[in-house]
């Protein structure tokens, strides 16, 4: 038997070690994790098609007689409603795919400090979906403005308000999606839960119309989303209540996800 020579394991030079904290490196690693899988790009494309497409449709069908001088920003909020689901799917997948593939075992080998991993993944995912939602919201309004030219306007102040609201809605619901991904450790289960909480349950409870059902609905995150983006939602909802409900679900979701990650074995 011939003895195959083994290539020496190249040593690392001491100066290869950059000055950088564990947290910065983990953020960089999470960023790379997010963008080196195709699903991220697919969800992004779906969100872009929904927002810009709706912007074009709304703009080109704007009636100059009725809508003359209206702000095109309304379309940003409206198009964010369907687009958010693509971005929430992106968030859920970014967190829970690690459990589906078993990659969490390596992830935690490389970053055994779970608090660092949790923070890095949450920040990367929530910031990404929020920034993307704002950019797409802007492009959506711009598409509507151009398609309707010269019927619609793009006033800056209103734009800041609308895009700020879109940012808050996406940040809070992405936080909820991230939390559910860590909590349920399954892309499918977390996606279904997100859809139930944000779309199906509020609609169903409001449609059923029993007073207690309406009360319950007003505490679901989807009611906050509907109120902030579309002005809909349960009767009696206020802007403050909508922000509070959605924000609480975001924070609560993260807390629940963190407890599961911190306490349980890595991949059970």
């Amino acid at each position, binding site marked *: 038997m011939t003895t195959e020579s083994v290539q020496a394991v190249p040593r690392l030079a001491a100066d290869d070690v950059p000055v950088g904290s564990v947290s910065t490196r983990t953020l960089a690693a999470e960023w790379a994790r997010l963008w080196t899988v195709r699903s991220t790009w697919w969800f992004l494309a779906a969100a872009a098609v929904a927002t810009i497409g709706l912007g074009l449709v709304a703009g080109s069908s704007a009636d100059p007689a009725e809508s003359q001088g209206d702000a095109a920003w309304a379309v940003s909020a409206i198009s964010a409603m369907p687009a958010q689901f693509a971005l929430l799917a992106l968030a859920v997948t970014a967190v829970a795919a690690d459990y589906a593939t078993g990659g969490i*075992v390596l992830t*935690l080998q490389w970053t055994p400090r779970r608090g660092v991993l949790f923070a890095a993944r949450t920040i990367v995912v929530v910031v990404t979906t929020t920034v993307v939602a704002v950019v797409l919201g802007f492009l959506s309004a711009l598409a509507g403005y151009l398609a309707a030219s010269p019927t619609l306007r793009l006033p800056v102040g209103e734009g800041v308000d609308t895009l700020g609201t879109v940012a808050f809605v996406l940040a809070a619901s992405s936080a909820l999606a991230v939390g559910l991904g860590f909590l349920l450790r399954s892309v499918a289960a977390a996606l279904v839960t997100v859809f139930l909480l944000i779309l199906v349950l509020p609609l169903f409870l409001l449609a059923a119309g029993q007073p207690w059902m309406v009360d319950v609905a007003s505490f679901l995150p989807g009611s906050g989303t509907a109120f902030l983006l579309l002005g809909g939602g349960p009767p009696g909802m206020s802007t403050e209540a909508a922000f509070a409900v959605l924000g609480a679900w975001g924070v609560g979701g993260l807390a629940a996800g963190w407890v599961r990650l911190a306490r349980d074995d890595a991949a*059970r």
Partner: protein
Amino acid sequence: MIEVRGLTKRYGNALAVDDLSFAVEPGKVTGFLGPNGAGKSTTMRLVLGLDRPTSGEALVDGQPFASLRDPLRRVGALLDAGLVHPGRSGRAHLQVAARTAGLPRRRVDEVIDLAGLGGAAGRRVKGYSLGMRQRLGIAAALLGNPSVLIFDEPINGLDLDGVRWLRGLLRQLADEGRTVLLSSHLLAEMQQTADRLVVIGRGRLIADATTDEVLQGMGGPRARLRTPEPDRMLAELTRRGLTARAHGDEIEVEGASAEQVSVVAHEVGVPLHHLSDGTHDLEQAYLELTERHVDHRSGPQPSAPTTPKEER
């Protein structure tokens, strides 16, 4: 250096690891043996801080793994080569690891070359064979030039060249003074690769000794011989209370070394064409060890000469 002290892990009612203690020293390849379900992988997960022990502790270089600030540069581990995102390319997978450890990109290329991944590195892991996934996992383990290496069944799926390559690599890593812990069910491979063996069954320590000691400790000495007068030799050996059997033109003697057999042959004047100390097949030794342990748990425990740890 890996130290496992009184490590116990219970899943529901099942005791996966039961008061396990052993140490894995640098500069040696330590084989981690046990039948399926013995708790090898669980022990490795506990060492890596992936699962929380029910009691006891596992330390890497004196610290719990989960408290290491820069784990990739201290410990390289490959637990299950299948646990990789299939949609990422091999190179992207390694780049995520490199970023985590703050390593430069060229380090990724170095370990790709080292592990013989070559052109496959640019392809998605989805299309990799198990052998290629093992090589990817080994590349990731070596990325941070760690002083401790932990491999769970790394030989699975490797072709013959791969096995030879890995055997040489493990030897080299140990010779460089690194701590190498390796589990495998390919016991013949262990016999050639491991300096020490930690044998467990049902989560308990069965043996912790050098490979030679474990082998010699099983069933006493053994010798093989060839002679033109096999029948007479067989009779003489049997008359002296030894168990001797003919295998083709060879005779195998249990309970006597080659030296003792040569004395017998000399006394009775039988010429020998060949005489050697028999090596125990590790597979056999290991089966005997674990079967005894597993079958007779409730009965009196056999005194295994290679077991420094007292059975409870």
